[in-house]
């Protein structure tokens, strides 16, 4: 569950001040896959960063898994980032000198997970995203779609309850984009992970359960796609 309650967020001060969120409200129930759309600069990434605890609001509250993240101390916030909430970006943010395997293992090493446990979880994550055969490749030796799979495996390896994806298909062609969205959808359905996916493309947005459109710092439109399978 993710809940934003009257969230205000500005950046900068004086003449360079930007008002990004102006009383933003949103509740995403556990297990939902929700897409966020909106013009460039409307605050989509900011919304994800708020839920990941990477940015804090000027006022209002954000609840993640029922807990107000403003009330967490530094240790609890670190735990939240290392174990509960994973982020996938448009740029894959893989370390170029590490193999696919080591990139995926990284969050577990930061969390001092024991080696056998690490191997089991990395193998499982690589398997889930269908990329086990690339485990020894470096990022430069992989396609965009493969790199994004590695990045998703790295997100999943911590067994998060929430995955935040910021334009995960932004650097991919349409066939690779479809595979990535299908993968996220499968993971949402099989693992029950709550997801927020920022996208500019209505086709990928429509693969989710719900579309929230941002405008003027608030929710401009909230479309439920809970339509049961009818004819096209």
């Amino acid at each position, binding site marked *: 569950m993710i809940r934003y309650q009257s969230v205000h967020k500005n950046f900068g001060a004086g003449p360079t001040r930007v008002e990004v969120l102006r009383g933003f409200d949103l509740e995403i129930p556990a297990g939902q896959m929700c897409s966020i759309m909106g013009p460039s600069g409307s605050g989509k990434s900011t919304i994800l960063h708020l839920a990941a605890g990477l940015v804090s609001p000027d006022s209002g509250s954000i609840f993640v898994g029922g807990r107000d993240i403003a009330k967490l101390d530094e240790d609890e916030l670190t735990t939240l980032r290392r174990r509960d909430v994973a982020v996938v970006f448009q740029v894959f943010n893989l370390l170029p000198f590490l193999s696919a395997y080591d990139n995926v293992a990284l969050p577990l090493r930061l969390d001092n997970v024991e080696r056998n446990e690490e191997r089991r979880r990395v193998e499982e994550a690589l398997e889930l995203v269908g990329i086990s055969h690339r485990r020894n490749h470096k990022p430069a030796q992989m396609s965009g779609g493969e790199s994004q799979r590695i990045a998703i495996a790295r997100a999943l390896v911590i067994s998060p309850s929430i995955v935040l994806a910021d334009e995960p298909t932004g650097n991919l062609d349409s066939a690779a984009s479809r595979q990535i969205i299908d993968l996220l959808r499968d993971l949402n359905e099989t693992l029950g992970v709550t997801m927020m996916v920022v996208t500019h493309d*209505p086709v990928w947005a429509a693969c989710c359960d719900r579309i929230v459109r941002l405008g003027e710092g608030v929710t401009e439109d909230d479309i439920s796609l809970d*339509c049961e*399978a009818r004819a096209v």
Partner: protein
Amino acid sequence: MKPGNVQFAVLGLIASKPEGIHGYALKGECEAISDAFWSLNYGKLYRILDLLESSGELDVADQIQQGRPNRKVYRITERGRRTLDDWLLSPLTGEAQPLRDELVLKLLFLGAGQVNKVCELIKQQRGIYLTRLARISRRRRRLAKAGVDMKASELVLDGAEMRVRADISWLDHVERALIKGHFGSYPSKQK
């Protein structure tokens, strides 16, 4: 274009000429705005004008011409304006092709005070399209999961998806232009 919409196009064009307009000039105006997307011969145009006159939407006056037969000049009545306003703000037809024509017409005759309401219509329409995309995507996944060889049905779904995507981009485009205030030629009563 749906037959009903032609009537409103004619009414809108007459409304944009407070001084009145005669049939010949009106046909020229129809052609100018339609970019040949609908064809309107004189017979059809005069039938529409008669209909609008008898229902009280139009006033007709004879204009005296030297050495030539008199001609009829059409003006919109209060009632006609109300009819036009009601139509401008009524929901758009869900089907893609009528929608495009209908929205273009509504934009042509839109008063400055009505922009927000039309943005509301665009939003509703976008919701309809996104729901359609969601159905396409679910159908695609069901077929893939069923493991059937789906080459042909996939192509059909690709086509449906491309069309809806184009319709959504156009709606976004119209919305951006509306927000910038590029529309509103019809002299509205609010002035």
